[in-house]
């Protein structure tokens, strides 16, 4: 069979070869194009005809199939190793220029990779037409690769395919499905050509298995492929079956789910900010990267959903009972409310970007008397536009995502927190003496409304009157802040129903109107009151969580209901200090508490990742996923069980002639002999009779003929030699013959081959 196929292949018409080369070159161009330099692309394209020529040589040579497959795979692996060895070393860039070094690396990597894959696959499919499916899968995978990566905008190439699709108004998924069906159809046609149905089914099963294994392996170990792992949509549904070959198939459902949820959350958040329609996303401030806090909130408190998990690696009890996780700071007064400062320098104590390496936040004063450094690890469960950090972040570092299925990302923050109560700062001045006049103006701007000043003066005076504030301290910014806080807590009502959104000055409308509002109003009111007293202040947003909630392992689970805005004031030498008031009276029901089980679950997962230093490309890599690991573990387990089963059956079939009754020996002992021959690759062909098979092996093992005719006589006449000694003797004589004639390595491979007996029939 093999020989025949090889023969027919060598007589393949030239136009077929040309078509095949063209298709392969197209696929290679598609695949390599976005990844490689021009040199690399050229090498890859040149490797296609080279691989085809080499495969013809291989097909003609009487190479054994595993050798061919191993050689192809080896060549491809070799490419990676050489590229690594050459690219990581310094001698090449030193010897030439870095550009040349890059080009050489590209050429070696892609040239050898394509050469190995093309040659290996072509040779295999020349020997076994069924395996041509692998070629189809490869081409399809290349196309799907480009499609999915373009769809996710992960390649900075002209996105000719996706743009073309979109410009005609087709859904990309539809196109992908179409490609999938095309591949399915082609392979079905191919399979129909092959008459023997089990073989076809086996081929498809093999393909699926390879696809899954390939996906699991590639997704985990090759960074090249992990770029496709980032937040894939529901793309490639059909194509995945074949496309999984090169590892870009869809991720586990979980991830897709969360990605989509995040997106929709974001969308609804934005909606709300712009249109003023309240649809229950008001709490997901973590999700939004807005320029200003909203004066709009949902009508009813939404159900809490987990947003992030924070693990504190040091004991820290906040003096006022709340952990404040800052995400945004708003200090610029725009005539209506406070928004993010136009000057990015202001408010740069709040990190705007997620860390990609160790980074420090400058410009935060540190005083050991008041401050404490608390290392934390933060894993974001919902997508966030900016990092969150416990009060003031000093250093940020990426961390390995310990649970990609649950976490968007993980990073570590060393936070500087204020460890003493506010009144400790009684003697501290507000602002900073070194500030220039425009900065003071920036931090002191508030609505042109005399009532703020009047109210502020009134509150301060009242507290002096009530004896709560000593007159000598009436100039103290902190005590003014405490007085304002006290006043607001006593005199306003927490309500989500009153948003004052349309008003010219929502904070004024809140403070001097119905005095009903929520955190954003309170924060603004406090900030304006402070500013009216000449105290620099701003509004910050993020999460606030009760310290008492800290769960096992000092983990705090931040929920969507924890989203909060608060006021901050600047004290010289201390930095931004939280001044937060929560009205004593509330029209809203108490939000449900935190889910302790979820908190400890996420906390544990978070700790797993916290210990390990993240890598530079950790972000993409970490997405590969627990799902992939689970799949590969399960596959590995199944593979091991299968292997164990095969070996058990092999041993059983080899040992049974020793104990079987003598009347069955003709069958069982003969079968053991056939197994022995199959180990070495001698198997009866389809339609070949046993005598013909024995005749074929006449020169190798003459005794096999005798055994065969005894076996046949017993099977078809019912009488034959039946003593165990005779049958076993024949078996051992054949074994001895084979030992003498077959090279050792083939016998060793045969001995270890667990599945050779499957070919015995």
């Amino acid at each position, binding site marked *: 069979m093999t020989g025949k196929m090889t023969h027919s292949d060598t007589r393949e018409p030239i136009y077929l070869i040309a078509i095949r080369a063209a298709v392969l070159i197209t696929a290679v161009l598609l695949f390599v194009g976005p990844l490689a330099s021009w040199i690399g692309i050229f090498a890859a394209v040149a490797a296609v005809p080279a691989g085809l020529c080499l495969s013809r040589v291989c097909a003609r040579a009487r190479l054994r199939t595993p050798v061919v497959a191993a050689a192809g795979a080896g060549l491809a692996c070799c490419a990676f190793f050489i590229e690594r060895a050459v690219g990581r070393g310094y001698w090449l860039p030193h010897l030439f220029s870095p550009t040349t070094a890059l080009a050489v690396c590209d050429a070696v990597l892609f040239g050898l990779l394509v050469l190995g894959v093309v040659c290996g696959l072509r040779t295999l499919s020349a020997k076994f037409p069924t395996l041509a499916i692998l070629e189809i899968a490869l081409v399809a995978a290349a196309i799907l690769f480009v499609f999915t990566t373009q769809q996710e905008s992960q390649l900075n190439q002209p996105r000719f395919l996706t743009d073309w699709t979109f410009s005609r108004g087709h859904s990309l998924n539809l196109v992908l499905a179409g490609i999938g069906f095309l591949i399915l159809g082609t392979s079905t046609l191919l399979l129909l050509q092959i008459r023997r149905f089990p073989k076809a089914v086996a081929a498809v099963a093999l393909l699926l298995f390879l696809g899954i294994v390939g996906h699991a392996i590639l997704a985990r170990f090759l960074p090249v492929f992990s770029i496709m792992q980032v937040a894939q949509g529901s793309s490639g549904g059909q194509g995945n079956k074949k496309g999984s070959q090169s590892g870009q198939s869809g991720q586990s459902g979980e991830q897709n789910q969360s990605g989509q949820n995040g997106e929709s959350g974001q969308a609804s958040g934005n909606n709300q900010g712009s249109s003023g329609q309240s649809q229950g996303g008001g709490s997901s401030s973590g999700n939004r990267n807005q320029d200003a806090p909203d004066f709009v909130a949902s009508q009813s408190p939404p159900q809490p959903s987990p947003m992030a998990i924070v693990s504190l690696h040091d004991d820290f009890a906040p003096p006022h009972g709340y952990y404040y996780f800052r995400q945004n700071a708003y200090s610029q007064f725009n005539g209506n409310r406070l928004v993010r400062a136009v000057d990015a320098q202001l408010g740069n104590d709040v990190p705007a970007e997620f860390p990609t390496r160790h980074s420090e936040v400058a410009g935060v004063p540190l005083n050991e008397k008041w401050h404490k450094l608390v290392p934390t690890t933060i894993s974001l469960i919902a997508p966030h536009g900016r990092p969150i950090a416990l009060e003031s972040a000093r250093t940020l570092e990426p961390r390995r995502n310990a649970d990609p299925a649950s976490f968007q990302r993980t990073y570590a923050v060393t936070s500087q927190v204020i460890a003493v109560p506010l009144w400790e700062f009684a003697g501290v001045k507000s602002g900073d003496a070194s500030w220039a006049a425009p900065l003071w103006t920036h931090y002191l701007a508030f609505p042109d409304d005399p009532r703020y000043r009047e109210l502020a003066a009134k509150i301060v005076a009242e507290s002096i009157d009530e004896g709560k504030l000593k007159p000598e301290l009436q100039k103290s910014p902190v005590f003014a802040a405490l007085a304002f806080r006290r006043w607001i807590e006593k005199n306003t009502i927490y309500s989500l129903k009153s948003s004052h959104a349309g008003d010219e000055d929502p904070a004024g409308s809140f403070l001097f109107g119905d005095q009903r509002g929520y955190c954003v109003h309170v924060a603004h009111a406090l900030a304006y009151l402070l500013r009216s007293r000449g105290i620099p202040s701003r509004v910050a947003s993020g999460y606030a969580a009760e310290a008492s909630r800290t769960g096992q392992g000092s983990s705090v689970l931040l929920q969507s209901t924890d989203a909060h805005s608060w006021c901050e004031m600047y004290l010289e030498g201390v930095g931004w200090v939280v001044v937060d008031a929560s009205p004593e009276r509330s029209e809203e029901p108490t939000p449900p508490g935190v889910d302790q089980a979820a908190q400890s679950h996420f906390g544990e997962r978070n700790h797993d990742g916290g210990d390990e230093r993240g890598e530079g490309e950790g972000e993409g890599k970490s997405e590969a996923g627990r799902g992939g690991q689970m799949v590969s573990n399960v596959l590995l387990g199944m593979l091991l069980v299968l292997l164990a089963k095969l070996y058990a059956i092999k041993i059983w079939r080899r040992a049974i002639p020793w104990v079987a009754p003598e009347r069955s020996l003709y069958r069982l002992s003969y079968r053991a002999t056939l197994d022995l021959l199959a180990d070495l690759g001698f198997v009866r062909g389809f339609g070949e009779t046993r*005598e013909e098979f024995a005749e074929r092996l006449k020169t190798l093992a003459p005794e096999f003929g005798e055994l065969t005719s005894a076996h046949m006589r017993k099977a078809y006449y019912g009488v034959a030699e039946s003593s165990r000694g005779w049958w076993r003797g024949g078996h051992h004589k054949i074994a001895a013959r084979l030992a003498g004639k077959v090279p050792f390595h083939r016998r060793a491979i045969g001995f270890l081959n667990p599945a050779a007996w499957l070919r015995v029939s």
Partner: protein
Amino acid sequence: MPAILQDSEMRLGEIDCVTTADEIGADDDAGDRHPLENVRLLIGKLAVSCRTQVQGRDDVIALVLTALFADGHVLLEDHPGSGKTTLAKALGSGISRAAGAHGFAAFRRIQFTPDLLPSDVTGTAMFDPDSGTLTFRNGPIFANVVLADEINRTSPKVQAALLEAMAEKQVTVDNETHALEELFFVIATQNPLDQAGTYPLPRAQLDRFLFKIKMTHLDRESELEVLARHQAAKSAAPSVGVSPAEIVAARRTIQEMVHVAPAVHECLVDIAEATRKDPRVALGISTRSLVLAIPAMQVRAVMHGRDYVSPRDVKALAIPLFSHRLELLPGAKEPDVIVAECAAGAIEVLTRKTLAR
């Protein structure tokens, strides 16, 4: 040509494992040998005698002898001058008759032509002036081995006369039935290429031939040998002297003593079903052909020194047995390929059964 077909044709050539001349020489102590062993030697004697006169046709000789001992007839399809007459003559010369029955011969040849009449084959009643009566004169068909050359050149009525004789081993002339001898073996030939002015045999008549054997040109070696031995063969044609009675007895022995396993029967039925289901075939092989197949396989088993029929016999004989019995749909060619394919599956099943309980 598929590998299976090539294989099976090649296997037909394995006659050298039948008997050698040495074995035949040592048949003094025939008494204590197994009866089948005697039969094998008998077949071997004839085979050796044929082979000395016809070179390079070992496969055809084997098939012809198989048919002879299976009580069937063969149709040789070949080109003129390919040695079929020589073969038939050689076979006839191997059979020696005691000079007994009047008008009977070991071997006769009938050259069929369009103007031939049935009486030219069967014989006719002639006026005997001595006795003044009409007496039946045996035609050329009254022989043990008849070579019916170019059978498709003659008219259907002549063909019919011959076929009646083949089927019934009797000849009816003027309402009078004349029995032929028990050993009656027809080797018919037809030219596959030259079809002009012929009366092709209908499928029903083809069905009466046990084998249709296609002869190809000799290979180079055999052809050279033919030229080299041409003179020698003419001078010395040894007679092995096998009597018709011996052959008839051998037939009986074979039928009684060669075991045919039920699995082999199943295999034959499988092949028949496969041909009937094949989309290229209008009419599959008949049950009669399966019945005829069994003795042929038994003979082949004996020729290979076995007392049981094995899958190999089925494989080797499937094409000569069945391919001329298929009625193909228009457009389908190569009945040999179809039979080989149908048989391969059934033989594979049969072969696998030996390992099953």
